[in-house]
């Protein structure tokens, strides 16, 4: 993975497969504590305690097409090599929350990359699921919430090309506004 937003896309696919109706993705940047926190939460089928302890093992997967499952281990590694922490909290029938922290200015921290493209891809391929993307920088924040978009759209599908383009620009422009021209990349 060349950027963290690709890890986010990958982990969110697990939520999709868990049958989630709502997936919440949060990126929080706190320069004061030098922390970047990425959270992916869902209301899907959840996991047993035994499954939770197994998913960070690269040789655990529920897939039958191959013997390895690298998504979670890759994110865990990306986090821990920057002095961050990785956790999964899950309850059967309630959902799962994956949280990874990173040393914001650590030399080994990959850039967040094109998170807008990640959210657009998720919405495009799963128009029946709701997504909330929240970006927090110090005390400022914004959210892109497909439940809100859906209300405005009155039946126009979320994955119409025009709507997908709107969501991408919505995220890019609001992120830029919050960063206030300090820099372009997270």
């Amino acid at each position, binding site marked *: 993975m060349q950027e963290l937003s690709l890890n986010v896309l990958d982990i969110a696919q697990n939520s999709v497969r868990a049958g989630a109706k709502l997936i919440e993705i949060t990126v929080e940047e706190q320069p004061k504590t030098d922390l970047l926190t990425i959270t992916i939460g869902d209301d899907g089928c959840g996991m047993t305690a035994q499954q939770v302890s197994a998913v960070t093992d690269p040789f655990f997967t529920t897939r039958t097409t191959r013997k390895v499952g690298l998504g979670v281990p890759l994110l865990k590694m990306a986090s821990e090599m920057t002095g961050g922490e990785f956790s999964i909290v899950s309850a059967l029938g309630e959902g799962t929350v994956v949280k990874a922290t990173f040393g914001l200015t650590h030399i080994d921290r990959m850039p967040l990359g094109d998170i807008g493209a990640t959210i657009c*891809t998720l919405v495009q391929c799963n128009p029946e699921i709701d997504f909330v993307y929240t970006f927090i920088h110090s005390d400022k924040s914004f959210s892109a919430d497909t439940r809100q978009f859906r209300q405005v759209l009155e039946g126009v599908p979320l994955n119409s090309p025009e709507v997908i383009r709107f969501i991408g620009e919505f995220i890019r422009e609001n992120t830029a506004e919050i960063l206030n021209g300090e820099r372009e990349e997270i």
Partner: protein
Amino acid sequence: MKSLAELQALRDQVKNNMGIRSDDSGNIRVVVGMATCGIAAGARPVLSAFTEEVAKRGLHNVTVTQTGCIGICQYEPVVEIMEPGKEKVTYVKMTPEKAVQVVVNHLANGNVMNEYTIGAATK
């Protein structure tokens, strides 16, 4: 700055064009592999390229969607084209540039790009 008011205007515009789109006859499905292997190999920009090019050319009978790992990770990004009544075509080691060519030649004009298929890659 993008706002919800702008989305409202967009909605009305899309609604006006909806009539043209509801024709589902001969729906072609473009399926992009989006498991860890696909994503790491560059599937996200490939999917975006398909979506954008399909929209740009107004191919209303094409649906771009995703699937998980199909077990040929060494050939990712893998894209399958499924068309009713025709054999499935599997493109391998895709890039956004190849995706645009596939939209133009295969999806719009019906000419399979044999040089990008798995058959050509395994020779």
